[in-house]
């Protein structure tokens, strides 16, 4: 207990931990009350569930559905390629199918699957009753499911995108892709990215703020570390592709030439933006799987992970380095030599943390006694496949070799080794390993072995020959190949392998149908894992939230399960009478306050339906209907927010052993504050990437980019934005006077709107046209982005007025005003960037 000697992070008296486990019996009816409060909605209302025990299972299930669907597409492609010049698929259909296979696997399977794993496992591992924003994760799930299914269905109508999952313009511009196929990709994927970001915010706040007391960062389970880095990477990486898809959609819909070389645009801008997202994406997928691997290696070897801290540092290093490797997808674009050198070095450096992880797993296996059960087999298989994929990755990081291998089947082989070894096999291991936690029956060990060996053999059979066909000159993304080039044999073997792999997946589906029985009792801890998720749990999660003193509490803390079930730790009941969980501090997990949590409701579901409706209707160009859908979505979101930020009658409650915690919080200790700040980081990343785009396009220009130089409007714009920041700050100081605070906040909103309008008007008067030049396009795109924020600000101002009308503005509930104030300050700062950037660059010649 050396931790006790350190100064407390929050002022919480850590000697209070010594009161646990408490003595004596808990009052009667406490468990029944918990059960009553946390039971899922019945009948058709199941759709409104928000408990992660449900949503997590649905989420994983939906991700696996997309895995199977995209896998079927792969089988169709392999059938077409089994022999040369087959007619199974026409050229157009094949181009759609390979685009969909990649897109669905990356966006609808891989990212959601690991995110889903987080939603399902994290509250259990952290000892929380649920994630901090259960409705947000349910919203993310429904948005993803509805949007994903609609997107997938486009293939049945021949409307599926056919520009490849990387969607390079100009092939995807209206000139060369006039149909709405590309719009399906841009809007569909843009939308699903929003869902992924929502999930990431949830995960970051969940990991940092809802851990069991005492679970300081050095006792944070390795999987949670991985999910934390993963979510952080989503926050940094996804804004780039959101911006890219927005720009391309603007180019397609409004003819704004971001990527059109003839009007000063540059198709390379897309590649930079896409791969700044696209390569970290690979590690985004890999990290949670590596976290799961690290957890399972320790469990199946029945020993602690060797080099835990090195693995954590490796995760962090992977996260950092992965943002410096994007251009290795662009080695054949004729980039200058120095840039090539830097990216090549970074691409190799990123394999160092991977080496650390692999040898940590091997060391763990050596120091324990490995059991060859199904999770164990998948762990070993994954390790081997991932190493092989990593090594071909090192090969491809060698620039001259990449000149040959790039865009050939060698790369197809490489990426499938990495993704299957780094993500699919760990995921199957995880499914077999954690099913007993959320199902009343474990999956079959007997069938599991079949699944493993079929998938393992099929995987090598399918992808090993592809290395060769690549070196034999077979390019990627070809719907057929010519006979007489000796490509028949490797391709036929690959096809056989793919079907063998599919048989493995089929056996797994059979196993799931026969044995997976969720939402009831759990099947116990058959693999004897050491984390909190293996404590006996019900829909309310664990009965009481223990004080954690070890990285492997179930292994190290004596009688933990017994005491937890007996309610001898934190929160043995429901002191506020509703759903709730403990909020703890980010470093040492000291209890800070009790977070009341929402009950099931339909509003987030409807919000998801209408958000999806907005994007889909926009895709099929039903503009009026899409606007109506957007308005309805906004109404639903506002109604959903209306539940939030209401203090409970009990200002403080006993959370166990006489420890009193607040039931309301605002500011940097509250979960809402964290979520808002992370959201603003996302927005700031979009801004940063659009600044990059501005500078990039500017640097490609042969003539200087002028900017309006009228001093008075510029100063007014700047002044208004600064005033907005001051007003928002002042509003929060005036919470004791609700009317004044409301007025100040509305004024702040008006100020950012006025500043935006003034700046925009300056550009219009200067005669800049969005469709005439790349400068026009990017200037108006940035103003459109700001306009979106101004629109949201207006909605927020309206919301504040509404709250004031209902008497909900006051010093007893400052959170909403605080968050809106933060948002408005950000919008104003963004307005200042928009004001300064073009004018500064106008002074310099490109």
């Amino acid at each position, binding site marked *: 207990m050396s931790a006790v000697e350190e100064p407390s992070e929050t002022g919480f008296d850590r000697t209070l931990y010594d009161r646990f486990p408490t003595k004596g019996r808990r009052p009667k009816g406490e468990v029944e009350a918990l059960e009553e409060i946390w039971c899922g909605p019945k009948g058709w209302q199941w759709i409104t569930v928000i408990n992660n025990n449900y949503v997590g299972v649905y989420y994983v299930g939906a991700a696996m559905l997309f895995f199977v669907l995209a896998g079927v597409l792969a089988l169709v492609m392999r059938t077409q390629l089994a*022999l*040369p*010049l*087959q*007619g199974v698929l026409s050229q157009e259909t094949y181009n759609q199918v390979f685009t969909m296979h990649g897109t669905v696997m990356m966006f609808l399977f891989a990212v959601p699957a690991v995110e889903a794993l987080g939603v399902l496992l994290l509250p259990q591992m952290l000892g929380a009753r649920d994630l901090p924003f259960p409705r947000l994760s349910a919203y993310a799930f429904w948005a993803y499911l509805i949007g994903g299914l609609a997107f997938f269905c486009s293939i049945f109508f021949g409307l599926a995108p056919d520009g490849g999952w990387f969607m390079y313009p100009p092939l995807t511009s209206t000139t060369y892709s006039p149909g709405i196929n590309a719009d399906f990709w841009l809007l569909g994927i843009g939308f699903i990215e929003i869902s992924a970001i929502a999930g990431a915010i949830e995960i970051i706040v969940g990991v940092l703020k809802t851990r069991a007391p005492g679970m300081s960062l050095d006792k944070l389970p390795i999987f949670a570390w991985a999910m934390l880095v993963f979510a952080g990477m989503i926050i940094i990486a996804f804004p780039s592709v959101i911006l890219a898809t927005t720009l391309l959609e603007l180019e397609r819909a409004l003819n704004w030439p971001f990527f059109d070389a003839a009007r000063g645009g540059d198709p390379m801008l897309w590649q930079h933006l896409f791969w700044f997202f696209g390569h970290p994406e690979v590690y985004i997928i890999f990290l949670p799987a590596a976290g799961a691997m690290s957890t399972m290696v320790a469990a199946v070897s029945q020993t602690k992970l060797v080099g835990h801290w090195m693995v954590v540092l490796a995760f962090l290093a992977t996260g950092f380095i992965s943002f410096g490797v994007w251009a290795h997808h662009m080695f054949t674009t004729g980039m200058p030599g120095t840039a090539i050198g830097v990216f090549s070095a970074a691409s190799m450096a990123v394999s160092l943390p991977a080496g650390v992880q692999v040898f940590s797993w091997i060391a763990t296996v050596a120091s324990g006694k490995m059991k060859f059960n199904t999770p164990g087999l998948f762990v070993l298989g994954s390790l081997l496949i991932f190493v092989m994929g990593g090594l071909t990755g090192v090969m491809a990081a060698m620039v001259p070799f990449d000149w040959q291998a790039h865009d050939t089947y060698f790369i197809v082989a490489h990426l499938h080794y990495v993704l299957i070894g780094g993500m699919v096999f760990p995921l199957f291991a995880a499914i077999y390993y954690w099913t007993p936690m959320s199902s009343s029956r474990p999956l079959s060990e007997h069938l599991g072995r079949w699944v493993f060996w079929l998938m393992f053999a099929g995987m090598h059979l399918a992808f090993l020959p592809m290395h060769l066909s690549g070196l034999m000159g077979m390019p990627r993304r070809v719907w*057929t190949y010519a*006979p007489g080039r000796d490509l028949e044999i490797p391709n036929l073997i690959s096809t056989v392998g793919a079907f063998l792999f599919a048989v493995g997946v089929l056996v797994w589906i059979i196993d799931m149908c026969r044995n997976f029985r969720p939402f009831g009792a759990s099947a116990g801890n058959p693999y004897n894992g050491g984390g909190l998720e293996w404590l006996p749990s019900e829909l309310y999660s664990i009965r009481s939230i223990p004080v954690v003193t070890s990285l492997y509490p179930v292994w190290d803390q004596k009688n933990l399960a017994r005491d937890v079930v007996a309610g001898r730790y934190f929160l043995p009941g429901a002191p506020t009478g509703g759903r709730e969980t403990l909020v703890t501090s980010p470093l040492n997990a000291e209890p800070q306050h009790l977070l009341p949590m929402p009950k099931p409701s339909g509003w987030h579901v409807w919000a998801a339906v209408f958000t999806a409706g907005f994007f889909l209707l926009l895709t099929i160009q039903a503009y009026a209907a899409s606007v109506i859908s957007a308005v309805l979505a906004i109404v639903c979101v506002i109604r959903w927010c209306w539940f939030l930020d209401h203090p409970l009658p009990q200002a403080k409650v006993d959370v166990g052993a006489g420890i009193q915690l607040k039931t309301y919080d605002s500011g940097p200790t509250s979960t809402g504050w964290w979520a808002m700040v992370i959201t603003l980081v996302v927005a700031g990343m979009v801004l940063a990437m659009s600044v990059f785009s501005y500078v990039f396009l500017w640097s490609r220009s042969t003539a200087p980019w002028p900017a309006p130089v009228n001093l008075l409007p510029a100063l007014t714009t700047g002044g208004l934005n600064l005033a907005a920041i001051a007003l928002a700050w002042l509003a929060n100081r005036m919470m004791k006077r609700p009317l004044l605070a409301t007025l100040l906040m509305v004024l702040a909103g008006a100020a950012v709107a006025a500043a935006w309008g003034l700046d925009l008007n300056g550009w219009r008067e200067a005669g800049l046209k969005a469709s005439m030049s790349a400068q026009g396009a990017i200037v108006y795109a940035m103003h459109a982005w700001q306009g979106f924020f101004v629109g949201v600000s207006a909605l927020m101002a309206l919301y504040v007025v509404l709250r004031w009308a209902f008497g909900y503005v006051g010093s007893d509930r400052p959170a909403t005003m605080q968050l809106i104030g933060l948002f408005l300050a950000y919008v104003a700062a963004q307005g200042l960037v928009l004001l300064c950037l073009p004018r500064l660059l106008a002074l310099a010649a490109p």
Partner: protein
Amino acid sequence: MIGLASAGLAACVEKGPEGPQITGADPARGLALVESHGCGACHVVPGVDWPKGQVGGPLKGFADRALIAGKLPNQPDVLVRWLRDPPALSPETAMPATGLTEVQARDVAAYLYTLDDQ
């Protein structure tokens, strides 16, 4: 025409159950020639995966066809002559002279006679 027909009758042909046979010709060599000359650019030829041109008639079941190009008797020597220089036999045809030698044309004909309806 009559001359052609009688020449056909006099030719050294055995019409077996698999269609006419041409002495000394090799259907396998014929197929290779069909592929290397790109006959598929105009004809759907069984045994050739691609291309499957729609310009000329499909050659499936050619052995059982009564006429070549709808107007000439489907006899081996007529076919061989046709394969070498179609416009000489039918000035309106779109099929150009192929540049096949006599021996090659016999091989190709032999291959075409393996194409029955089964």
